C-alpha cells in the first residue's frame, strides 16, 4: 500500500474522538473502541485507525497489528447484503462447504470479496452456535438454517 492520506470529515473525526473519550482514552480499551467504530462505519479503513491512534495514543502500527489479528475486524467495506457461511464443525459435516461453493459459483466471488455492484459480500465464519440448524447461512441479520446447495439461488433471489 502506498502512502495513505488521512482525510476525513469533521463529524467522523469527532465521532471517533468521542468514542475514545467515552473509553477514557485508555489504550487498553482499544478493542472496544474499534468495535464501536466498526459498528458505526461498517469497516475500519486506515483513516479511522489513524484517528484512533491519536485518540488513544497508541502507535498506528500497533492498531493495524490488532485489526489484522482479529477476524471480526475488516478494512474493506462489506456488501449491502453480507453473506456469511458457518463453517463450524457441525455445519461442515452437514455439507456447509458445498453450500459455500454454490455461493461462490452463483456470485462469482471468493470468500472475502464483494460482488462488482457491491450488493453481496461473502465470508465464512466459525460456529454461530446454531448447530441445530446446520448448515447455517447468515445474510445480514437474517439466519437461514438447514441450507442445501439447491437453496442458494432462492436465497439470493430474495435480495434482488
Amino acid at each position, binding site marked *: 500500500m502506498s502512502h495513505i492520506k*488521512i482525510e476525513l470529515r*469533521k463529524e467522523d473525526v469527532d465521532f471517533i474522538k468521542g468514542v475514545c473519550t467515552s473509553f477514557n482514552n485508555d489504550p487498553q480499551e482499544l478493542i472496544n473502541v474499534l468495535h464501536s467504530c466498526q459498528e458505526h462505519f461498517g469497516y475500519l479503513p486506515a483513516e479511522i485507525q489513524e484517528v484512533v491512534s491519536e485518540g488513544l495514543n497508541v502507535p498506528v502500527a500497533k*492498531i493495524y497489528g490488532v485489526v489484522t*489479528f482479529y477476524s471480526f475486524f475488516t478494512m474493506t467495506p462489506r456488501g449491502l447484503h453480507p453473506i456469511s457461511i458457518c463453517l463450524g464443525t457441525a455445519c461442515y459435516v452437514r455439507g456447509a462447504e458445498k453450500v459455500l461453493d454454490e455461493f461462490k459459483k452463483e456470485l462469482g466471488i471468493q470468500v472475502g470479496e464483494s460482488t462488482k455492484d457491491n450488493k453481496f459480500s461473502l465470508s465464512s465464519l466459525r460456529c454461530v452456535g446454531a448447530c441445530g440448524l446446520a448448515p447455517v447461512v447468515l445474510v445480514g441479520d437474517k439466519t437461514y438454517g438447514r441450507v442445501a446447495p439447491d437453496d442458494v439461488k432462492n436465497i439470493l433471489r430474495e435480495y434482488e
Partner: protein
Amino acid sequence: METIKLTIDNKEIDVPKGTTIQKAARELGIEIPTLCYMELHDLGIENKPAGCRICVAEVQGRRNLAPTCSTNCENGMVVKTHTPRVLNARRTVMEFILSDHPKDCLICPKSGDCELQTMAHRLGIRDIPGQEFAATSTYRKDTSPSIIRDLDKCILCRRCEMMCNDVQTVGALSAINRGFMATVAPAFEQNLEHSTCTYCGQCVAVCPTGALTEVNHVPSVLRALADPTKTVVVQTAPAVRVALGEEFGLAPGTIVTGKMTAALRALGFDYVFDTDFAADLTILEEGTELLDRLSRHLNGDTTARIPILTSCCPGWVNFFEKYFPDLKDVPSTAKSPQQMFGAIAKSYFAEKIGVNRKDMVVVSIMPCLAKKYECQREEFSVDGNPDVDYSISTRELAAFIKQANIDIKTLHDEDFDSPLGESTGASVIFGTTGGVIEAACRTAYEVYTGKKLERLDFTELRGMEGVRSATIDFNGLPVNIGIAHGLGNARKLLDDVRSGTSQFHAIEVMACPGGCIGGGGQPLHHGNSDVIRARAAALYAEDRSKPLRKSHENPFIVKLYEEFLEKPNSEKAHHLLHTHYFDKQKKIIIKH
C-alpha cells in the same frame, strides 16, 4: 538471594532464584541454541517471546519440552539439553522454519553473518522434507532511503518490534496478521518511508536474518571511484574505527584507525579524512550556541530556549521532527558532523584544491543507517548536489574491503590526510553516549570561564545507564546536564521539556543504545553487550592517547575559522554549518 540447585545434563549447579535454564546451562559451558532470544545485559534490553522453540530442553516430570530461554530454574529440576527427543524436536522445528524461508543465501546480504544460516549449519540440516509442496509466506519488498525490508526472510523473532517499540518507542513496526501470514510491518504495510520510522536502524542491528538490512551504497561508491573525473573524498566517523576490526576477526574494541585509513586509501579514495575534524567543528558551533542561549537565559531573556539539545544524531532529529515538532526550536541548530564535513569539503576544501563541487564526491563511513537518509535531505544540498553523496555503514565498508582483496590485518597504519583529517580527543568520544556533551563541556568550560580545565575526564557523564544526569561546575555556575541514549529514554527527557519540568540546561541524545558505537550500521553484536562496552572503552582510550583533547585546540579548526568561517556562529558559519527542522508529524486532514 535464594539459591536454586538443579542438574543440567548430569551436572549439578547452584544459581540465584530467577535464573533461566539457558543461563544456568551457560554457566556450565552448555550453549543451548536459540534464534529469537536476545539480551543486551548492560543496556537492560531483553527479547524473549519464546517463539522460535529452538532452545527447548527436556525437564524431568514435565509433559512437554521447556523453552529454556524463558523457563526459570527450580529446585531439584533435572534438565537434559540433548536427548534424542530434544534433538529431534529442535531439528524438526528448524526444518519448519527453513521451509518458510527463501533459499537464496548465495546473494543474501546477510550471508555469512546470518544467525539462521549459522543455526541451520549447527543443527546439520541438509534437506527440508516436503519442501516441494510447501507454501511460503511472501510479502512485498520495501526499500527506504536507509533500510530494506524483505519480510520473506522474517522468522518472527520479534526483536525488531521490541527494539522499535519498547526500546526506541518509535512504534513504526508491529506484528501484523495472524498465523502463517504473521510478520512485522509498519501500519497498513506501507513503506517505512511513510511510517514514523526514524531510520535509527536498531531493527537492522538485531535482525537475525536478512529480513532487515541496510541499503547498500557500495556499488555507487565504486562507480564514483572508477570515474576519473571525480575527486572522491571520504570521512570516517569515530565509532567505525573501534568496530571495523570485528569484521576481520579482531577483538571488539580493537582500534584500527591507521589500518582503516590505509585500506580506504588502497580502495582508491583521493582524500581520506576524518569526521572527527567536523566533530571538533560541531563543538565550537554547538558549544557557542549553548553558551549564548545559556547566558541569555541566565540574564532573563525568555526567548532563549533552555535546555539546548544536541543535534548530531540524525535518528534523533527524525524522532523529534515526528514526535515533538512543537519543540523543534529547542535542539541546537548545528548540523551533524557528517553534514558539517560535507559542507566544508564541498566549499572550503573544494576551493582549496580547485575542484568544482559537482566533480567532488563525498563519501561517509558511518556506524549509522540514519546517516544514509540524512545525507539525502534536500536542505543539505546545493542545486541538487548533496554535500555528502553517499553514506556507507561500517559493515558495508568491511564488505568493500573484503571485495578488494585487502587484508586489513597486514596493512601498516597510515594517517589521515590534512587538513580535514586532524582531530582532538574530544571528537573521538562523540562515538559513545555522553561523549558529545563531555566534549562540549571541555570547550564550553574554557570559553565560559576563561580558565584552563584541569580535569578533562568527566567520568560523571559516562556509563551505560539509559538516562544519566550530572551537574558540572562552570566556576560557580552549576550547569545541569542530561544524557539519554536510546529514543525511549530520550522521550522521557523530552516529555519533561514539553511539560516545562525539565531541570537541565543541556541534554545530549543519541538514538542508539550505547551511542554511535551501538549504531545500526555497526558489525552485529549478536546480543552480546560486552561488544558495545569494549567499543566505548576503546574510544575513551583513543581520547586519552591524543595530544590534544579539546576541540577548540584543534589547530586546523582554528585555521578554518581564520581562513574561512571567521568565528563560531558567524553568518557564514550559520549558512554552512547550521540547519533548521521541520514538523513531520502526521496530520489528519479535515475534508469539507
